[in-house]
């Protein structure tokens, strides 16, 4: 039987918790900016904006198609090379070493997430009945106003569970940022684990911390969804109210 050293695990929890702010920072930044960018992409695609539509199809394909790790590397190793080149040709003196790895992580994660968000938003915009847009137009709203006031709020409800997926996936994906020296929860767990080969313990600790963060997120998402769905009374008899028991109260 494996001897899980609980004492060690518990004793090291505070040390691993120190990574939580970084994890959250990356996830929240990527989520927010990714959503904005993703929404723009989705709209360009739905409205088939001439050149942009094509461009974004390729963008989405490329970003989703290549490993996030590679994207991180591209920024991490690419930007300094680019800066060097720039310094040479323009005589500037930017030092790539002064750029915080966290910034690379922010950019890479935001770009990565935006591709996924674009598809989520496209799916949920498609789920809104076209009559809603027509009605908004008929009362004299511009398309932008109609989107903002009528269509997006309805699309957002459809998107919520999927956004939840992305957010939670993102929380865990931040561990990849370790590849560019950003030390968050998982990285701390690994560092601590190494001396005594306590990988089992530390992975469990990391898993628990992730779970805790994600559980809070689930509660939040369920709450928002519940609120919005109640408002629309869409599934009156389908018993869709979810948060009667919040997740995990088993």
């Amino acid at each position, binding site marked *: 039987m*494996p*001897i899980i050293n609980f004492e060690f695990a518990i004793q090291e929890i505070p040390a691993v918790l120190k990574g939580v702010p970084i994890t959250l920072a990356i996830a929240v930044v990527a989520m927010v900016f990714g959503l904005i960018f993703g929404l723009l992409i989705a709209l360009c695609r739905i409205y088939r904006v001439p050149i942009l539509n094509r461009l974004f199809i390729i963008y989405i394909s490329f970003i989703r198609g290549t490993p996030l790790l590679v994207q991180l590397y591209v920024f991490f190793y690419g930007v300094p090379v680019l800066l060097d080149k720039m310094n040479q040709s323009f005589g500037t003196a930017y030092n790539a070493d002064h750029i915080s790895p966290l910034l690379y992580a922010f950019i890479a994660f935001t770009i990565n997430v935006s591709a996924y968000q674009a598809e989520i938003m496209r799916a949920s915009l498609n789920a809104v009945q076209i009559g809603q847009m027509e009605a908004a137009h008929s009362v004299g709203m511009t398309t932008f106003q109609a989107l903002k006031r009528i269509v997006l709020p309805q699309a957002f409800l459809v998107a919520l569970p999927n956004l939840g997926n992305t957010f939670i996936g993102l929380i865990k994906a931040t561990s990849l940022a*370790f590849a560019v020296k950003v030390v968050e929860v998982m990285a701390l767990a*690994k*560092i601590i684990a*190494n001396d*005594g080969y306590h*990988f089992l313990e530390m992975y469990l600790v990391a898993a628990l911390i992730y779970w805790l963060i994600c559980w809070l997120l689930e509660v939040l998402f369920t709450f928002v969804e519940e609120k919005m769905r109640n408002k629309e009374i869409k599934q009156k008899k389908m018993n869709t109210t979810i948060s009667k028991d919040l997740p995990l109260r088993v």
Partner: protein
Amino acid sequence: TTEDGKKIITVAISDEVNPPFLYADDDNKPIGYDMDYLKEVEKKLEDYHFEYVWGEEEANLVGVDTGKYDFAINWFFKNPEREEKFLYPEQEFGYSLTSLVTQPDRDDIKTLEDMVGKKLAPMSPSGGLRTILNSYNKNNPDEQIEIESIEFPSNADNLQRVNDGKDDAMFINVTTFNAVQEELDLNLKVAGIVSKEPVYAVFNKEQTELAKEFDEVTKELIEDGTLPDLAEKWFKINFFENLDYINEENYKFNP
């Protein structure tokens, strides 16, 4: 057990390969010093049959811990904390020569103490090298060496950083350095050997019997010259000799 009544032993081998200790040939078959050593052991331990499983190093250790694998081999170092968790044989089967690599004209760096306040190339959070530094830091609370962590560090990339003067030195295994240097031919030197670390296979806590037999066999293999020969074959140096001998007589760190 196999058909001819041998007991099957599952051996986890790490993907964080490090030629020439352990790496893969073109068919992804593991080869290297470690594998030759295990073959010799298997020959002597007639009751056992070894089966090899590739895996990530952390996963391998968890696997040994939980009993999924009987032992794991890679250049595992020994320390008291690890001994609590795993069973280590008494007898090492080889050595890792750890060193600091710098630009050729630097003579301010020879030992770990010299690294205090200087910049070390980023390192993996796991692995034996990291452990040596961690224990140094633990023993010298006032003279900490700053270590940057990074997942999947690239030796080549790190050496390049030292070459370019972005970092002062890299803490690296000598054999690894030589192999990379052969390819890249950077303007670097081994500034100093830090230690000759014995390396072991690590066993599941319940494999006391097997570990004991390993000990005996390994001792025999060293005494009858098999392992020193293998060392010559893979490393072009018999690292069973003492450090001074290696340092001064034989081993050309800076060809």
